[in-house]
């Protein structure tokens, strides 16, 4: 029961926070757009792509995308490690 009360209080605080987000920002009217206007205006000439999402993903922020591929690689390696067959003389965890 005590845990439940703590939970409710924390949720109220959280919802107050997020309520402020919902009240302060206006949907459909971003406060500042200078960086994105640059992408839209010069992205075509600088990257040669019509799709500006792709130009941001692969050129302007291409390094993020490399990291993102790496995250997928991490997950695949992690899953492969988890489902491997353990060898005979392998180090066991201590119980």
């Amino acid at each position, binding site marked *: 029961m005590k845990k439940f009360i703590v*939970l409710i209080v924390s*949720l109220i605080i*959280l*919802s107050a926070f*997020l*309520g402020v*987000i*919902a*009240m302060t*920002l*206006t*949907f*459909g*009217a*971003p406060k500042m*757009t200078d*960086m*994105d206007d640059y*992408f*839209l205006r010069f*992205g*075509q000439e600088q990257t040669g792509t*019509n*799709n*500006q*999402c792709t*130009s*941001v*993903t692969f050129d302007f*922020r291409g390094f*993020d*995308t490399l*990291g*993102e591929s790496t*995250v*997928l690689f*991490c*997950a*695949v390696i*992690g*899953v492969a490690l*988890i*489902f491997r067959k353990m060898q005979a003389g392998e180090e066991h965890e201590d119980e």
Partner: protein
Amino acid sequence: MLWNLPFITVVVLTFIGIITVLLKKNIIKILLGINILESAVNLFLVSLGYREGGVAPIFTLAPSNLMVLPTPQALTLTSIVIGVATSALVLSFAMVLKKKYGTVDIDKIRRLQG
């Protein structure tokens, strides 16, 4: 109020996600809570970039020159892929735990304490 509906949806989804993660004992349900939270963040990012009357930022035969902001869409793409990787790893953990303990209830699994 109503014009901010996407942001309110974000708040509601965050609410549901946090409650699910904190209160549920089943690993699969915890993962679903995390996925809901991720959706909330993605929706938040995408709705930050919406411009009234804008079209998708793709110049191929675009209907108009007024476009929504492209950066949040790129960020969302990254965060979706990270979410997929996260789900894959957590589900694998759940499968191994189910095999070792016969349950996915974290209260019954919990052996590490103190």
